[in-house]
């Protein structure tokens, strides 16, 4: 049961890495899109991709935290106690990001828009960096068990954490570029398809390079993880690389969905490789999954809840997908009345302000 809970936890982390990562990555491309004029068109595509899911992907992160503190309370306490600084930064970044994304749309002056846009984009880089650094700290065994605080700075300012942070930013940008290619294609904007395709290739190269450098970093700085990655987790590492290459191949061959799927596969197997490499430690060499596990009653309840969620939510997602594909039925669902009373009131005042 402990193992199942840990697997669910890693699955949730992977999901957040993919959906949240793509979101953050879109922010990264926003950051580097260039000046107001030049970057306008790319930002438009990015806006279109993010607006419908605005901040919803954090639900996965909440799920990760809830699972961690419920099923492995000691691990949660140790992680938050030691990694206070990067986690606080990440939390602030998340709020700042959500708020400034909305602000940017609500203000009209170009200068205001640029400032909020910058806040949005910078926090989109800050947050994945912090999460990457946190993972680096955990994976390199810098978080002591037992609710003792580790080094407040050294725990996340060290080679493995820097590697984790940079890799996280690269991976987010990489995923986002693949997703944005599809989004641009949906908008039939060929220029932007080409634009993000170039960036996808660039990000893939960067991620690959960081991963290569990473091998040397880990060999020196995170022995346990390195040993795991080169033995137990080796098939997953290879799978990740293969998926990554396949994604690039499919991208240049201009297939519709294949490239995106392969990119997701590359990221998912990377996260899985990390998990397998440090198995069965939650905090390498100080806290194992079974030692951190909550009593059986709790585990049962959480797994039942997870099962229920899957049963309830999968059909709902299918419904949503079907609706997305369905054509409009304007005449049957009462479109806006032509003579809405609102149209008569033309001056602007504050109506629903919640």
């Amino acid at each position, binding site marked *: 049961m402990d193992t199942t809970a840990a697997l669910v936890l890693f699955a949730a982390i992977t999901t957040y890495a993919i959906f949240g990562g793509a979101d953050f990555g879109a922010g990264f491309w926003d950051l580097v899109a260039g000046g107001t004029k030049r970057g*306008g068109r790319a*930002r438009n595509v990015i*806006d279109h991709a993010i607006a*419908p899911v605005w*901040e919803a992907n*954090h*639900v996965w*992160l*909440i*799920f990760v935290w*809830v*699972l961690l*503190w*419920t*099923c492995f*309370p000691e691990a949660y*306490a*140790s992680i*938050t*106690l030691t990694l206070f600084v990067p*986690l606080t930064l990440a*939390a*602030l970044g998340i*709020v*700042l990001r*959500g*708020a400034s994304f*909305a602000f940017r749309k609500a203000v*009209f002056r170009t200068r205001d828009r640029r400032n909020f846009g910058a806040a949005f984009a910078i926090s989109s880089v800050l947050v994945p960096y912090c999460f990457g650094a946190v993972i680096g700290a955990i994976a390199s065994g810098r978080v002591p068990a037992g609710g003792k605080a580790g080094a407040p700075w050294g725990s996340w300012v060290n080679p493995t954490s820097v590697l984790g942070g940079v890799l996280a930013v690269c991976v987010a940008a990489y995923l986002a570029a693949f997703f944005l290619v599809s989004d641009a294609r949906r908008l039939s*904007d060929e220029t932007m398809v080409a634009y993000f395709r170039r960036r996808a290739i660039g990000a893939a190269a960067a991620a690959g390079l960081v991963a290569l450098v990473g091998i040397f970093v880990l060999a020196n700085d995170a022995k346990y993880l390195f040993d795991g990655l080169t033995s137990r987790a080796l098939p997953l590492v290879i799978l990740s690389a293969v998926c990554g290459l396949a994604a690039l191949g499919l991208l240049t061959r201009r297939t519709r969905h294949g490239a995106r799927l392969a990119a997701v596969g590359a990221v998912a197997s990377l996260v899985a490789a990390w998990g397998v490499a440090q198995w069965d430690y939650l905090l390498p060499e100080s806290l194992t999954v079974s030692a951190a596990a*909550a*009593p059986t*009653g*709790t585990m049962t*309840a*959480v797994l039942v*809840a997870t099962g*229920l*969620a899957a049963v*309830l*939510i999968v059909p*709902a997602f299918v419904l949503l997908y079907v*609706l997305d594909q369905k054509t409009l*039925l304007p005449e*049957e*669902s*009462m479109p*806006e*009345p032509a003579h*809405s*009373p609102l*149209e*008569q009131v*033309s001056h*602007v005042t*504050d*109506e*629903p*302000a*919640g």
Partner: protein
Amino acid sequence: MAFTLAFHIILVPLGVSWSVMTLIANYRGIKHQDADAMLLAQRWSKYMAVTFAVGAVTGTVLSFEFGLLWPKFMGQWGAAFGVPFAFEGIFFFTEAVFISIYIFGWRRLKPWAHFWTGVPIAVAGIFGSISVVAANAWMNSPQGVTLDKSGKVIDVDPMGVIFNDAMPLMAAHMVVAAYLVGGFMVASVYAVGMLKGRTDHYHRMGFIIAFTVAAIATPVQMAVGDTLARWVYDNQPTKFAAIEMVPKTSDDVPEVLLGHLNSEGEVTGGIPIPGLASILSDPSDGTSTVVQGLDETPAADRPTNHEVNVTHLAWDVMVGVGTLLFLLTLWWWAAWIFRRSMPGSKWFLRAAAASGVLGVVAMEAGWTVSEVGRQPWIVYEKMKVEDAATANTGIWITFIGVVILYLGLGVTTILVMRQMSRRFRGGQSGEVDVPYGPSEPIEAGDEKVPL
């Protein structure tokens, strides 16, 4: 932490009750072929998406903060405290997905089918809030855990944790509060509009639907609150003594309005109403009901004088504001019964315009009663606050940062909603990009459109 929670909790009533108001409008729209009602439902569903998204951001921060501020609390009790949150997860996901489906469905589903896709939002809202409140209620009534000698949790009975003794009444009180506050909040916006002369069918309907929801919830809330107060009297006598500001055990205890404890711990100031606290605590015994005083609890295990004052004041505010709102709803019902229409007076609308803020104040005060009255315990009679908090320094800096960010977030929410309402009123189509909604195709040369 209390600040973040206090902020988050403002969004909660909207998340829980707005869906119901939307469904009422939607129902009316289909049943009576009322195009205005339909339009109202359509727009409300989009505002809902925005508040839900902001709720998600603040909720994310909360899930960090539990660990950042109370690592020891979470390490010790996470296995029990977390159980209700795991169930809450189900309801969040359900709510998020169905809000999306509902918004997508406007122009893609037949009217009744579409209406039914909105129902799960309302149901999930109720169960979601019950789950979270169950976690909080567990701190008042920590059951379902077995500890070993060193105080480590070795066994958890999930049912015992979720269905702890404090949960049913607290959850009921919170859910009704959500409808009360949400109803008044939405109604107050339309009241402002009507005061500005927008009294057409559409605005009146927005007001009537929202205010009716609140006007049903308010009397219910008084009854539930009264029962809850008696539960506290029976189960948490120290908190009750703080609420009623009773230093010494006795019968015939007066109900003191306002007032405070001075440094000697004596009641000073305020307006005493003889015997009322005793009568309210157990009406069947009248003034002879004995109310346990603060002095029965060792000083280290009870709230400080200052905390007692805060609790008592918050109590007065909650009950006082509740009573005012209750009077307002009486006015409303009287007008409907005797004149068969809503009250026409400008003063009624002015009061209604204030009711949204008042509702929030009552709710925040209620939480203060519950939380401060429990001091110094974080988990009643099991763990003290000082043993739970983090040893990290620099919390104050974080705190100030968080306050500033949240103010920003609050302003954003309001700005975004105003922007939406401007676009709605500007006569553009009802389709605006909202979180979770389908996005419109970009037209060539389209300037970036505000949300």
